[in-house]
């Protein structure tokens, strides 16, 4: 490999360092209006009346839009359309962030003032605020029942497992919300241009979602809307479906006023209205043999969806498939329920419904190890998947299974036996500060799998300019994870052009075919393959031409390091592309990649759940202050089998960020609510890790068990990088205090 897997500088780095990268809020247009939003601010009720007259009286207010102004379908929802865009009179308000009206005004200040002048009359209803209340189904939040969705796995005979078991563990778990807290709040600028194309500049992971959703809201054909993803200041799942709900607001106002309209959320709006990681409650019953072998898993998990289903049914697919962890389990009986409550709708968040159950199953594994007197490392090694094994859904794995290698690698780099010894000695001599070690061993089904295969295709366009510089446009997005650099590396590997001559453009939906969402750690495989295919096609065009032109064999032509070797003559890449251009050689191509068809029985939850899996292991060392309850992550050792490392620095960055964000989830971050209203609506009370909370070191290693379908063998890393962290840290805390942690975030009371 020439450049794949090497350490390179990210291609968009300097632009960001000098502050010239343009995020949604950095777009300004002549004659631009500013939008504000009128919220219901009530968790449950019936909207009786809206009075906008006072707002209109304020000078500088240009438009106050309500449901009556929506020209298309006033509804959102990925699986079922159960959420109003703007609540109609007579309909229900289902959470505090339901939107009643939108304002367009000449300035931000006027827009905000006007929002306070809209009055609405809401007949309040008692809200449903917890999973337990929702399950009673006495007050219905949405649809016919609060249990909106159910998914399951039925494999083998679970009762046999319990009959044959030497140890049966029954444990309950709870997890809280997590707010994405991307540093850049949601925002969009919409401009209904004079030639009647709706241009939308939006901070987003999935511009094609915005495209379709805004088209529905406005009743416009898709070829009249261009969604341009701006530089995006972090997503983590929070900018998967939500940017549709955000962008539709200025889009409607721009449609109505024929002027550009900007809406940038404040942090408070963002936390109040937009999705979070689902809180959950789980019950696990797991059967083991004396030697630690798992015989069966029975589990029941409830996810708190909040007021609307949004992406929950898809999230639940992942929860279901990941419920048994990365282990061989012959008997499986898994149930996952999505439950409506009168709170903020939950949706996608790095890990997508799997961290909740991975925390549970990994805690069970540790507890079993303890009871059976086996080392937590050994019990995982014994049960983990290998080539030839079946996952809990009965998916037989035929290649690219590096699970064991990741375990062994972490064991080795952490010098585990010595470390264990050190911890033991430390704890014997320290009364109030205790150290703890915790393992986690997880897997992650890459991309959308059988839960969303209709979206699993991606397009890329590669264009070589006559001067040898290269433009790439992909349908997936850069949001910080390093996708642009990864794509440039792939093109560079194939075409031999230097990295600094390659730029990757922001996607535009009027240019590229729908490439599905940038989620599920799928970009490297999907866009990466699409770029690989397009670049290969161009390379063939060039080779075909050169072999004719110079009268040499095709195999006598090679590309590397900004040069092209034709038999024994070296040309610069620029000389060749100029020559090609003059001779009408096709220097632009589109690559399209889609996955092979998967087979899955959704009724039984059995089959090929995903195209491939990433396998990961983490060992964490924590220090717990018994007196104050303070937990610090001291050090972590992590290893991921991602098939092939393409963008080395990017991969390390993902793991560092994932471990720390996962740490926030496990021990720090907490959404506090009062009567369905979020109290922790900014960073003064929703506390995320600062540089002082970061561990001293995160040791990262990769295993490369190539996935034949992936570009150069690569799988995905974006989400597993977080997922290994919470269970490992929770297990480390349990280990330190010698008491099982069964709830995250871990609170002070759990310690002292």
């Amino acid at each position, binding site marked *: 490999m020439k450049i794949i897997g090497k350490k390179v500088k990210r291609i968009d780095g300097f*632009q960001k*360092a000098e502050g010239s990268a343009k995020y949604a809020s950095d777009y300004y247009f002549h004659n631009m209006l500013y939008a504000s939003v009128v919220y219901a601010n009530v968790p449950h009720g019936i909207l009786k009346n809206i009075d906008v007259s006072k707002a209109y009286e304020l000078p500088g207010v240009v438009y106050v839009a309500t449901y009556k102004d929506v020209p298309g379908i006033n509804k959102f929802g990925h699986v079922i359309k159960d959420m109003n865009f703007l609540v109609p009179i007579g309909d229900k308000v289902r959470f505090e962030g339901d939107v009643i009206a939108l304002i367009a005004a000449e300035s931000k200040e006027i827009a905000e003032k006007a929002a306070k002048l809209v009055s609405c009359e809401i007949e309040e209803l008692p809200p449903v605020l917890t999973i337990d209340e929702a399950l009673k189904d006495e007050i219905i939040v949405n649809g016919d029942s609060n249990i909106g969705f159910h998914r399951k796995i039925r494999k083998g005979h679970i009762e046999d497992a319990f009959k044959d078991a030497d140890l049966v563990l029954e444990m309950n778990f709870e997890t809280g919300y997590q707010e*994405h807290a991307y540093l*850049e709040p949601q925002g969009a600028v919409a401009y209904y241009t004079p030639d009647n194309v709706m241009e939308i500049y939006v901070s987003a992971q999935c511009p094609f979602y915005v495209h379709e959703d805004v088209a529905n809201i406005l009743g416009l054909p898709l070829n009249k809307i261009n969604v341009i993803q701006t*530089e995006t*200041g*972090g997503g983590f799942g929070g900018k998967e479906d939500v940017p549709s709900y955000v962008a539709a607001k200025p889009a409607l106002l721009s449609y109505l006023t024929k002027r550009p309209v900007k809406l940038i959320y404040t942090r408070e709006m963002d936390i109040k209205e937009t999705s979070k990681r689902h809180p959950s409650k789980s019950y696990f019953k797991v059967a083991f043999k004396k030697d630690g072998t798992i015989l069966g898993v029975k589990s029941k998990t409830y996810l708190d969806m909040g007021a609307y289903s949004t992406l929950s049914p898809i999230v639940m697919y992942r929860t279901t498939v990941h419920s048994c962890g990365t282990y061989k389990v012959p008997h499986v009986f898994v149930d996952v329920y999505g439950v409506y409550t009168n709170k903020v709708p939950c949706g996608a968040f790095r890990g997508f419904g799997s961290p909740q159950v991975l925390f549970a199953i990994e805690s069970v594994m540790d507890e079993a190890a303890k009871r059976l007197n086996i080392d937590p490392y050994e019990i995982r090694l014994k049960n983990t998947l290998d080539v030839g094994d079946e996952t809990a859904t009965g998916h037989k794995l035929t290649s690219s299974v590096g699970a064991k290698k990741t375990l062994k690698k972490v064991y080795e780099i952490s010098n585990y036996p010595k470390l264990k010894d050190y911890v033991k000695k430390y704890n014997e001599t320290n009364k109030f500060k205790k150290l703890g070690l915790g393992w986690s061993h997880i897997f992650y089904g890459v991309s959308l799998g059988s839960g969303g295969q209709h979206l699993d295709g991606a397009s890329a366009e590669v264009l070589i300019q006559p001067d040898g510089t290269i433009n790439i446009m992909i349908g997936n997005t850069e949001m910080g994870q390093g996708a642009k650099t990864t794509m440039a590396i792939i093109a560079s590997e194939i075409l031999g052009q230097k990295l600094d001559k390659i730029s990757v453009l922001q996607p535009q939906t009027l240019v590229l075919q729908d490439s599905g969402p940038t989620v599920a750690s799928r970009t490297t495989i999907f866009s990466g393959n699409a770029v690989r295919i397009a670049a290969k096609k161009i390379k063939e065009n060039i080779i075909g031409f050169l072999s004719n032109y110079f009268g040499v064999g095709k195999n006598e032509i090679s590309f590397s390091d900004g040069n092209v070797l034709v038999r024994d003559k070296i040309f610069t890449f620029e000389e060749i592309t100029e020559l090609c251009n003059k001779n009408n050689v096709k220097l632009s191509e589109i690559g399209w990649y889609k996955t092979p068809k998967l087979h899955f029985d959704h009724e039984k939850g059995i089959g090929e759940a995903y195209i491939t899996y990433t396998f990961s292991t983490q060992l964490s060392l924590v220090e717990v202050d018994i007196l104050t309850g303070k937990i610090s992550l001291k050090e972590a050792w992590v290893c991921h089998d991602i098939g092939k490392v393409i963008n080395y620095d990017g991969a390390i960055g993902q793991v560092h960020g994932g471990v720390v*964000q996962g740490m926030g989830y496990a021990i720090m971050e907490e959404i506090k609510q009062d009567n369905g209203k979020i109290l922790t609506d900014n960073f003064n009370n929703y506390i995320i890790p*600062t*540089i002082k909370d970061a561990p001293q070191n995160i040791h990262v290693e990769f295993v490369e068990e190539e996935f034949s379908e992936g570009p150069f063998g690569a799988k995905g890393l974006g989400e597993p990088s977080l997922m290994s962290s919470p269970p490992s840290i929770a297990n480390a805390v349990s280990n330190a205090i010698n008491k099982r942690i069964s709830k995250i975030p871990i609170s002070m009371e759990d310690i002292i």
Partner: protein
Amino acid sequence: MIIKFKLNGKEIVKDVPVHKRALDFLRDDLGVLSIKEGCGEGECGACTILVDGKNIHSCLMLAVELDGKEVLTVEGLKDKTIQNAFVEAGAIQCGFCTPGFIISTKALLNENKNPSSEEIKEALEGNLCRCTGYLKIEEAVKLAVKMYNKGSDKK
């Protein structure tokens, strides 16, 4: 109120409303777009600017308070060492926090040419980053120090 101040070395005279935040004034009126708003409450550091050599959250400052001051943002950095160090160290992901971190680093290195890990953490505690996990940011600051030291060795 008419204010007069220096922005990245340039004299600015402008009439500003007394309630306007420095953040909005600098971004919306003067187009200094490296300054980002992440929280509006002085908690995230994305809006950090250098005022008379000190790092300040511009979301908590009024535009009129800029009167008579000298303001530096990343647009005005002539010496690119810190920026290069951030790129080199892999300390940038989404980049939304980056200008703020670079300004805070600048403030730190103005005062302390050889900060320890502890001092770096102390200086950057007011800047949040959700992407990197901070390890590479600390590395970037140390790299910048190294680059400066190398530069002064040569002289």
